């Protein structure tokens, strides 16, 4: 039987839509919402999508299940007045410094106020300005601009399984913040920045480095070089109402714009992506050949890398040691560019443009620096680049495209599709699997790894061995894969993980999108771009080959490792310890028993009990302080206890007692 609604007097059929809101939007009625995102659970807090359902009264469309023959009105006088009041109340409790707000122009609250024709706010402003949180390189939090829609909280929890942000307090005191009201830097945030993408206002926004870059550009002593990531060309046009077919034109226009800003060289990160593939695919083959650690995880997404460092240190050996394309660009540029530009090393400024907020954090990782000099000085997002173009007044739609500079500007299609979820895998396969093309277009050979799902699997034959591949986006999906591997539920050889839905094209540094159509369009742009490339296999890139010959020997060589690889470190998630001694003693031996969940399961409670008894009975009573630590981060070797700074792994009460006695003897 046909199911239908009557919306504003018109009969509308529906079928599998999840709720009333989706049917109404399908009818091209843009009901306002703050808290509704089709990827997230329904929350129903903003009340902006209220509609009148005959016989039922006012209901929020997002949380109303569909029933056939409902009669809906979306624009009665009462509804319009209610929406206005909601927005006015939000504005009365909002830091309305719109002109200086990072989200000005893309803010949904601003847009809605305009759409609803709000020309006066009937309520007294009650905003108490709360301090900004600028603790991270990636994001800025401005709690005074929060509308409590909870989008950030749900994204972080439901898609990324991180939960760095949460609601705290209640009623008029409610806020969204990291645990204990700490700064974001001290939380488990992986800086994917998707919170800032879903935030309807400026309460969380990417941190801007625009003014620092202008400053470097105006310094006559400095030579500033820049490189743009593949995903940037797929989205920047959205800001200027320019949508290209395949990204080539947009990339060319970006090059023109950057040159007129005064950058000495304009490069393409797709070049270093080619290099990443060569190095990473080579590493993968080595691992397979030498029975190395398998599955190998890709390591180009810094949010994913931080995620592993924080939650799954036991999987660190599985991460490819290859630097991300940004990391490779940085180190290679530092090595070769001073000579090419004839500029002293210290006067070279290296900038990159990324679709990503986590890349800002990545650039400051201690592993991406040499002798105290960071490889990449500044990281701009696509949004920031668009702003810079606007700032100098260029008409993006009308400027002529120009070419990238060499040598770091030549790429193959393999380096371009990096920006899509599945792109890295596809490019690696182009390197690893030496099948004849069989008349199949090179660009389409491995297109079976493409797709929209957050967890995709593929199998492929490599010299008689079946390779099992997983392509993942969203860290919750990644967590599931890691759990399945841990419990032997599944086996893979190669796993690509990108934190952001859709991969880098959906990154938080890109122009804000709310509609999944935008994501699909960007994905398509990169695949189309690949198609028109002369070369598709990263290993065929002549400039990459030349770079190896002149500077890096061959893939996997010692030199290549020095410049193109990196290392990872377990990251402490919790810094708290629970002190168990009643008084701090003077000359003491500090004992920390690990009470992380893994050690606890392995019996740290019994060990603690023994140690406590031991300390009581022996004559060391006033010389030993005991505390419970929440994770000493050696989970695979637990249970662990730290005695005077040294960790006793796989400890027993005997080994710890011995360590304590040894320490006491020293005194």
């Amino acid at each position, binding site marked *: 039987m046909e199911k239908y609604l009557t919306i504003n007097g018109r009969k509308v059929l529906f079928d599998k839509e999840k709720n009333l809101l989706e049917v109404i939007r399908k009818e091209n009625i843009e009901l306002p919402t703050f808290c509704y995102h089709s990827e997230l659970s329904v929350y129903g807090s903003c009340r902006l999508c209220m509609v009148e359902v005959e016989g039922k009264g006012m209901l929020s469309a997002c949380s109303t299940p569909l029933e056939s023959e409902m009669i809906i009105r979306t624009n009665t006088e009462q509804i319009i007045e209610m929406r206005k009041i909601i927005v006015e109340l939000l504005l009365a409790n909002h830091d309305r410094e719109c002109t200086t707000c990072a989200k000005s122009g893309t803010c949904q609250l601003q847009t809605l106020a305009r759409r609803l024709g709000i020309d006066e706010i009937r309520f007294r402003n009650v905003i108490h300005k709360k301090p900004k949180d600028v603790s991270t390189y990636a994001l800025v939090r401005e709690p005074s601009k929060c509308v409590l829609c909870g989008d950030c909280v749900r994204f972080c*929890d439901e898609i990324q399984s*991180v*939960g*760095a*942000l*949460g*609601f*705290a*307090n*209640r009623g008029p005191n409610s806020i969204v*913040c*990291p*645990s*204990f*009201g700490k700064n974001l830097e001290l*939380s*488990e945030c992986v800086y994917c920045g998707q919170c800032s993408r879903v935030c309807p206002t400026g309460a969380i926004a990417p941190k801007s480095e625009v003014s620092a870059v202008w400053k470097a550009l105006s310094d006559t002593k400095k030579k500033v070089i820049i490189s743009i990531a593949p995903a940037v060309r797929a989205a920047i046009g959205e800001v200027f109402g320019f949508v290209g077919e395949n990204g080539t034109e947009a990339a060319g226009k970006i090059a023109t714009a950057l040159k007129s800003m005064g950058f000495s060289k304009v490069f393409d990160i797709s070049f270093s992506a080619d290099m990443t593939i060569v190095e990473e695919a080579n590493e993968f083959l080595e691992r397979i050949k030498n029975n190395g650690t398998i599955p190998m995880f890709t390591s180009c997404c810094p949010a994913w890398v931080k995620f592993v460092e924080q939650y799954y240190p036991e999987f660190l050996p599985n991460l490819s040691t290859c630097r991300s394309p940004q990391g490779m660009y940085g180190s290679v540029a530092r090595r070769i560019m001073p000579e090419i530009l004839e500029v002293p090393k210290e006067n070279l400024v290296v900038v990159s443009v990324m679709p990503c907020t986590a890349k800002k954090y990545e650039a400051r990782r201690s592993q991406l620096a040499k002798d105290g000099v960071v490889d990449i000085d500044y990281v701009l997002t696509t949004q920031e680049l668009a702003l810079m173009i606007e700032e100098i007044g260029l008409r993006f739609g009308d400027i002529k495209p120009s070419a990238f500079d060499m040598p770091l500007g030549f790429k193959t299609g393999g380096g371009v599709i990096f920006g899509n979820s599945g792109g890295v895998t596809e490019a690696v396969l182009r390197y690893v699997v030496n099948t004849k093309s069989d008349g199949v277009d090179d660009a389409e050979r491995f297109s079976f790894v493409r797709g929209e799902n957050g967890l995709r699997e593929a199998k492929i034959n490599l010299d008689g061995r079946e390779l099992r591949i997983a392509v993942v986006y969203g860290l919750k999906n990644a967590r599931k894969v890691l759990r399945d591997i841990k419990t032997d539920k599944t086996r893979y050889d190669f796993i690509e993980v990108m934190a952001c839905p859709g991969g880098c094209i959906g990154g938080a540094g890109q122009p804000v999108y709310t509609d999944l159509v935008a994501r699909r369009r960007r994905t398509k742009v990169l695949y189309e771009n690949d198609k028109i490339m002369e070369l598709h296999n990263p290993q065929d890139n002549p400039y990459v080959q030349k770079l190896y010959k002149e500077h890096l020997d061959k893939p996997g060589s010692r030199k290549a490792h020095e410049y193109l690889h990196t290392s990872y470190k377990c990251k402490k*998630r*919790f810094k*708290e*310890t*629970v*002190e*168990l*001694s*009643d008084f701090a003693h003077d000359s003491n031996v500090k004992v920390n028993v690990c*009470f*992380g*969940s893994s050690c*606890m399961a392995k019996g740290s*409670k019994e060990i603690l*009990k023994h140690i*406590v008894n031991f*300390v*009581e009975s022996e004559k060391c009573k006033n010389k030993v302080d*005991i505390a*419970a630590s*929440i*994770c000493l981060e050696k989970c695979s070797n637990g249970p662990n206890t730290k005695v005077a700074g040294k960790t006793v792994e796989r400890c027993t009460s005997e080994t710890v007692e011995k360590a304590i006695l040894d320490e006491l003897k020293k005194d």
Partner: protein
Amino acid sequence: MGANYEKFETVCRVLEENKFDKSKLIPILQAVQEEYRYLPQEVLTFISSSLNISPAKVYGVATFFAHFTLIPKGKHIIRICDGTACHVKKSAAIINAVKKKLKLKENEITTKDMLFTIETVACLGACGLAPVLVIDGEVHGQMSPEKVVDLIDNMLKQEVAKQ
């Protein structure tokens, strides 16, 4: 070993008794607060790690309910009812008398020596005894400012005697 260790052991026991079940977060927090008289940050972090939920969520629950506190409370807790019935019978005067007696400023609820914490509650459900207050679980009905000051004086005397 001393009190700190015993408290921590209790936390471990409470977690075990609740089988490390996330959905038991509220009863776990209640039991832990019973032990510490407040919810210390490091213990909340420990609970979040043991139950495998993010600390932001645990913090959210701990700050949502008025019952929980993240600030240490005094040894004796005085709950003064300010519900309708008590309010009509001038509970405000009692609150003021207690505050004055304990030298508490406007937003302070705990004395500097950590002996007393005062809380006002919306209704203790003992309206027949209005105005009413509860000290350490014991109900005192038909209070007056003078009577409550006497009660506090007695408690102070007992504290001195203990020392």
